[in-house]
């Protein structure tokens, strides 16, 4: 009896979780195809919001701004973060703990606090050079917030490399300078790719930090959406969400297919 009821409870809670996760997204997709501007009543099916979306230069510009910002900041954060992780793992155990702890603080810290402090910090330098907030400040801010995640993601993989593997490479004639490209990089490459994807995702959908550091001349998609929502949500935004959501799903499927393929080749 207990078993049956507990099974039902666990099944129901499972269903609820997924309903709450996915129903809002489906509502957005459905209303992206609604011919009326109403947010409550579905009139008839249309794709006109999609075509209007592609005519809206402000939204498109913000989308590409976000894309470029996410891409560049993720690349730089991945490089710096990986180098930092390599350095940290070479330190003594006690120092390693200190730096790992320091790396955690920005991740745990409230985004608002990080955003405001970054704004104040950047403002100080902008005053010196007589410049204004814009792409550069946003880029610096995004690298700052994504880099700790890269360190966190790459470090365990570096630690997994057995010291004897490096000794074996040295023993076989590999010079210490070549060790990185011959052994370390190939071993941690999957984590680096993962870290890059995570940094990209964090940067692309970040609102709080961007809000304080982008200024007026440069607008990212989340900041733009925020300012639009304050006025009135247009079905164009729904259309944009639908596109992003479908893209995300496609990327996920792609990653899964790649994973399955690489697993297959491992089995034989």
């Amino acid at each position, binding site marked *: 009896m207990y078993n049956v009821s507990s099974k039902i409870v666990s099944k129901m809670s499972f269903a609820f979780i997924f309903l709450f996760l996915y129903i809002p997204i489906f509502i957005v997709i459905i209303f992206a195809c609604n011919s009326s501007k109403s947010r409550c009543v579905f009139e008839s099916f249309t794709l006109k919001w999609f075509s209007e979306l592609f005519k809206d230069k402000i939204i498109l510009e913000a989308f590409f701004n976000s894309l470029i910002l996410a891409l560049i900041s993720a690349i730089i954060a991945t490089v710096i973060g990986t180098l930092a992780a390599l350095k940290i793992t070479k330190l003594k155990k006690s120092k390693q703990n200190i730096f790992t702890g320091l790396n955690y603080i920005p991740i745990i810290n409230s985004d608002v606090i990080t955003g405001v402090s970054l704004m104040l910090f950047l403002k100080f330098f902008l005053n010196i050079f007589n410049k204004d907030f814009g792409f550069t400040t946003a880029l610096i801010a995004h690298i700052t917030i994504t880099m700790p995640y890269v360190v966190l993601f790459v470090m365990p993989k570096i630690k997994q490399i057995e010291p004897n593997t490096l000794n074996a490479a040295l023993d076989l*004639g590999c*010079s210490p300078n070549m060790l990185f490209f011959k052994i370390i990089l190939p071993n941690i490459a999957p984590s680096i790719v993962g870290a890059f994807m995570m940094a990209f995702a964090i940067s692309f959908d970040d609102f709080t930090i961007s809000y304080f550091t982008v200024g007026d001349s440069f607008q990212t998609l989340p900041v733009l959406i925020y300012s639009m929502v304050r006025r009135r949500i247009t079905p164009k935004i729904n259309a944009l969400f639908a596109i992003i959501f479908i893209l995300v799903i496609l990327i996920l499927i792609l990653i899964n297919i790649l994973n399955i393929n690489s697993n297959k080749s491992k089995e034989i």
Partner: protein
Amino acid sequence: MKNFKHIIELKNISISFNKEVILENFNIKIKSGKFVTLLGPSGCGKSTILKIIAGLLKPDSGETIFNGENITNLPPYKRNINTVFQRYALFSHLNVFENIAFGLKIKNLPKDEIKERVLNILKTVNLKGFEKRKPFQLSGGQQQRVAIARALVNRPKLLLLDEPLSALDVNLKQEMQFELKEMQQNLNTTFVYVTHDQEEALTMSDFVVVMNEGEIQQIGTPQEIYNEPQNAFVADFIGQSNILNGTMVKDYRISFANEVFECVDKGFEKNQPVDLVIRPEDILIVPEGEGKFNGVVDTIVFKGAHFELEILARNIYWLVHTTKYYEKGKKVGLNFSPDDIHIMPKLFEQSTNIIKAVAVDEQTISFLDVEFKTNEFKLKANSKVKLIIPPKSISLVSTDSADLVLTLDSIIYKGSYNEMYFYYEDEDENDGYILVNSEYEEEVGTKLGLKFNFNEVKILN
């Protein structure tokens, strides 16, 4: 290149980690073309020696001579020496072919030659057709062969093997031992093999170097090591044995088990205390009254090829191997001939404990952080005295109720008790060993609590 008689020579090598001395003024010469095994318990410094030869560790002082050339300061990647590491250390991101070709590619050899050499060595290690596999798709034995191939394909003059078979199961281990020995003979390369497994060392080696605590105990062929151990440590570490305390009464005469026996050794001082060993397979069981002395079968265990018996005779438990079954409790005679008794100088010269102490006041004596009262006679405050502490008066107790906690340095079973030596060092830098005779069996390197029976301690002015 000229071939020297000794492929590798270590001269006065010293090295320590975190202030702990691993090797001190260590010297060894290894002959070209031989299979040499460094054998010893873990922590004896054997792997450190291998790393120094490979160049992965730099000694604090001393020289490494390789084929007549001083390579002390040469980095590992410039040495014509290759290593097979513990737990293989294969490159997990590369397949078998790429793993083996790693060293050759770095040397920028032509592609055809690399391919030919890799395929050839794969044949040697019986892994033809496995080129495309990744390391994790191989069994332990196969990974081991790849590791060996990866090292041998570079045609090193010297191959170092660091406990390469320790992760394999028994059957595979024996097979690989045979294959390794064969490979060494066919390639005519010097192999330096490190292991703590005495059977492995005896099976494969031309020479065995028995080590303990950074020092060589004995170098010899497997037969020499087994049949003529130089001290009780070697006798205890290699094979099973009966190790006993004895006294050389004079040349060719040794006293043990309350009797004087004929032996084949000479050259000791008169009445010098010695250790002696009789191997269990050298003792013959004869009908009661017909042997050197009589005893009673205490235990009998079937070991496949033989029975292993413990026979109590003259307060000593004798370990005996025989192919015949004897009932527990049966009275038998034990026999052995003079050349079955191997005599060795003692590892530690002391047979009791004489320790310097200070009288704190008239009735209190202090030594090594231990204080005790005595009523025997009056002492002068601050006067120096000596204590004689019989080994049997010290008992092993848990560390929190102990008078003194020390680390066990050596333990050898002497027929009816364990002879243990504990190293001590006091504030005035007096150091030495405390000898304890105990029935308990403990592992070397563990911290143990010692409790003294002060009634049995003798005080000398």
